């Protein structure tokens, strides 16, 4: 099992390297002069040059890439100066005279707009998004599997047809449309009854109480975000269950004298869950990364919200950092899911 996870981690590292290469060169092909964006349009040549030098923009592209990698790598060699110490916030591992081998958090540089550290900026906003995605996914998974099973055991009956039709609607509804409709209905017209707001944050900041958690605000965005994965998980569970229920080992389970419910849950569902797990994992990663519209509509200050704002203002370091973090989330979730597979299905462990 450890070997299995180790190998997956190795592959993950390779994927991350590939993404880094693509992201770096892609963003350097885009038009726009970063130095001008930092300094403003009216700055003089000397300021521009100074900025170019600071960001290394005057160097040839391969050198720039090397410097970028060096900034990103958790283990790297730097000159041991107070400026560098301040820039990277590293922990010294081995002193090599003038230079030091250091351990550090990947340095994603600073925002062109606010000059804040990109890493800090994104991490601050990642947490609300993670909660949003997890809540949406938990909702989608629990209800998706339950509805899928109900639908499968009622195959070809009215209830099944009704649920399948509903799921098609859920899949085809774009999230920004759903977001607007849902926020209008539940957050505005029915607000008195539901007690929910049109928009809201996970944390409320008040001058006296400080930071307070506001779970109520999570309900509508999570519900909206969960509709599509719910519909897909439901359909997957349904078709997978129908397939498994035809298998010979289900007949074996009945022939032992097991009651219907036990056959359904213990023998059928566990086998039917494999494709569902794949879907859940794929969706979880993309929800964390791509809740852009929903966050925008509900004014949920999260990862997607920040990224959209950064794209609007051509704040390259923030966008690049966002892409890298999204990639990292994908890789990490996939490894997690592979491990989960191996736990559920013993046949995966062998190969």
């Amino acid at each position, binding site marked *: 099992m450890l070997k299995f996870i180790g*190998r997956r981690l*190795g592959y993950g590292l390779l994927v991350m390297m590939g993404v880094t290469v693509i992201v770096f060169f892609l963003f350097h092909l885009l038009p726009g002069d970063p130095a001008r964006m930092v300094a403003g349009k009216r700055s003089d040549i000397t300021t521009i040059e100074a900025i170019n030098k600071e960001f290394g923009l005057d160097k040839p592209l391969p050198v720039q890439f090397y410097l970028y990698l060096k900034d990103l790598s958790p283990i790297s060699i730097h000159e041991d100066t107070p400026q560098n110490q301040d820039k990277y916030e590293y922990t010294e591992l081995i002193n090599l005279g003038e230079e030091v081998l250091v351990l550090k958090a990947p340095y994603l540089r600073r925002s062109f707009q606010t000059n804040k550290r990109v890493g800090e900026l994104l991490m601050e906003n990642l947490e609300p998004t993670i909660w949003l995605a997890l809540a949406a996914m938990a909702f989608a998974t629990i209800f998706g599997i339950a509805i899928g099973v109900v639908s499968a055991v009622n195959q070809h009956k009215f209830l099944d047809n009704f649920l399948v039709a509903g799921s098609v609607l859920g899949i085809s509804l774009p999230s920004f449309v759903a977001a607007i409709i849902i926020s209008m209905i539940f957050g505005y017209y029915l607000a008195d009854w539901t007690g929910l707001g049109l928009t809201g944050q996970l944390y409320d900041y008040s001058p006296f109480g400080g930071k307070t958690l506001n779970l109520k605000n999570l309900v509508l965005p999570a519900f909206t975000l969960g509709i599509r994965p719910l519909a897909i998980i439901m359909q997957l569970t349904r078709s997978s269950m129908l397939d498994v229920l035809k*298998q*010979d*080992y289900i*007949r*074996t*389970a*009945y*022939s*032992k*004298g*097991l*009651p219907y419910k036990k056959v359904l849950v213990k*023998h059928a569902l*566990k*086998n039917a869950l494999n494709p569902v797990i794949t879907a859940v994992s794929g969706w979880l990663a993309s929800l964390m990364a791509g809740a852009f519209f929903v966050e925008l509509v509900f004014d949920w200050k999260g990862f997607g919200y920040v990224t959209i704002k950064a794209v609007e203002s051509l704040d390259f370091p923030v966008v690049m950092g966002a892409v890298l973090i999204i990639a990292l989330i994908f890789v990490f979730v996939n490894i997690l899911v592979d491990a989960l597979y191996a736990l*559920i*299905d*013993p*046949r995966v462990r*062998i190969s």
Partner: protein
Amino acid sequence: MAMKENVILDVKNLKTHFTSKRGVVKAVDDISFTIHKGETIGIVGESGSGKSVTALTMMGLLPKPQASIEGGDIILNSPGLGPVDVTKVDEKTMRKIRGEDIAMIFQEPMSSLNPVYTCGDQVMEAIMLHRNVSRKEAKVRTIDLFKKVKLPRPEKIFDTYPHQISGGQKQRVMIAMAMSCDPRVLIADEPTTALDVTVQKSIVDLMKELSEDNDMATIFITHDLGVIADIADKVVVMYQGKIVEQGPIFNIFNNPQHPYTKGLLACRPRLDVKLRELPTVSDFMEVNPEGEIVEKKDSKYKSAAFAVLSNLVTEDEIQEKQLKMLKDQPIIEVKNLKTYFPVREGIFKKSKEVIKAVDDVSFKVFEGETLGLVGESGCGKTTLGRSMMRLIEPTEGEVLFFGKNILDYNKKEMMQLRKDMQIIFQDPYSSLNPRQTIGDAIVEPMRFHKIGSSDKERRSIAENLLEEVGLSPNFYTRYPHEFSGGQRQRIVIARALAVDPKFIICDESVSALDVSVQAQVLNLLNRLKENHDFTYIFISHDLSVVKFMADRIMVMNDGKIVESGFSESIYDAPKSDYTIKLMNAIPHGNIEDIRRRTLQRKAKTDTYGY
């Protein structure tokens, strides 16, 4: 009858129907039979004869809502519940009966066990369901059962998952599961059909032993009368939902009354004599205008024995053929062929070990002969066949086709080779594309190899081929799912013939078929060979089938050829232990053996006093 009180299961006028859009199918049509305590009965019939539906009706496991019991009773004398009619009990009682009074094992051991639970868990589950015992006690009982069904290292098997053990072992786990609550009746639905003959024998022996030790009634369902010759006391022969004949096994084998039974007995290939043609069921019976099955009036054969005698190939003929064959040039010569599969491990895919599927094999194939290749699954016979066609790239060695090494062929020469060599696979269900019509499947290779000048001409060739393999030319536009296994295999044969090959490899081509259908397909293959002067390599795990087909036989084990020679000399004087083991595993249906066994059992029951 004197043994009335010992009746355990009494089936009376049972009717089970299937309703579909196309109408009602009378899957089981008014059948009656009884099973006594400790008795073993065989239900014999081909696919679709209603034998499995009978079993599922007894278990209350009919697929709903398509199937319904339209009449009749199945009275079970349950030790716990007294006499109950299982066709009428409620689901809760039925659950108590399943596993506790009637247990069942199925045809496909590969798919009958749940892949995500260990073998031990699945058996324990049955015990804990019916017996009020702790997990610890259930585990002890499970391991005991594993010992009883002779699984090697029972403690280890307890913790393994089904995919980690062999097919025969899986079937033993299934048997252990069925036996776990001492059922009064054990139903075995084709328990050995998916297994090799050698494994089949050991499973049949095990079932025989268990039913004798536990005084349990056994229903053994099979398409092959030969299989139950060793085990059954009574035989019920089914055809199209009806029982056409039933009686003690000795009578059925010695003096079959119904033409269908006669056909079934005659159609199994025999080891002792060589036949020109296998008798088939349709040689014995026909359906009269009233829809009844009757003895064929102008039948070629008067009886099963006559069918054998009139078909014998004499010693002289065999010898003549052998001499003639050796004069010919070999069409294929295989020299030191090796096909290894590396076992890969690690990120860098460095191969550490190899599996020697074909390990230094050399032989010749003469023009016009049928060379038989026998061995158990995993012995490398399929890999050898595919390596010879370069469907699998061999690791080392030479395959000379008309004197030229095909391993050196370029692309163009390979194309020609694909036309000259054809292969007929085992599973007719997966070797036809379900989205392609029969006609397209046959025409496609012709178009590729530029046979026939127009699509119209190719179509007429294809229709002729369909006729030649005994199908209607009207099937041209139909899809594979409309056909039975035997018909599909005929279609596959027609497809192979389409490119006018010289050499055909039949890879277990009849193993998935019922014996009665198997006989027809084997006869077809032989007839085609005579008409077209083919050379065959016939691969099978069943020595009796190979003996019928082949002029020469090679016996393969562990990637090596352990013995080869003329079929007759191998049968008369097998040299290797492995060949003897294969030969002993063939069900004989020897009438003297059956008589002896019946008498033995009678003596035993007499001493018990009933």
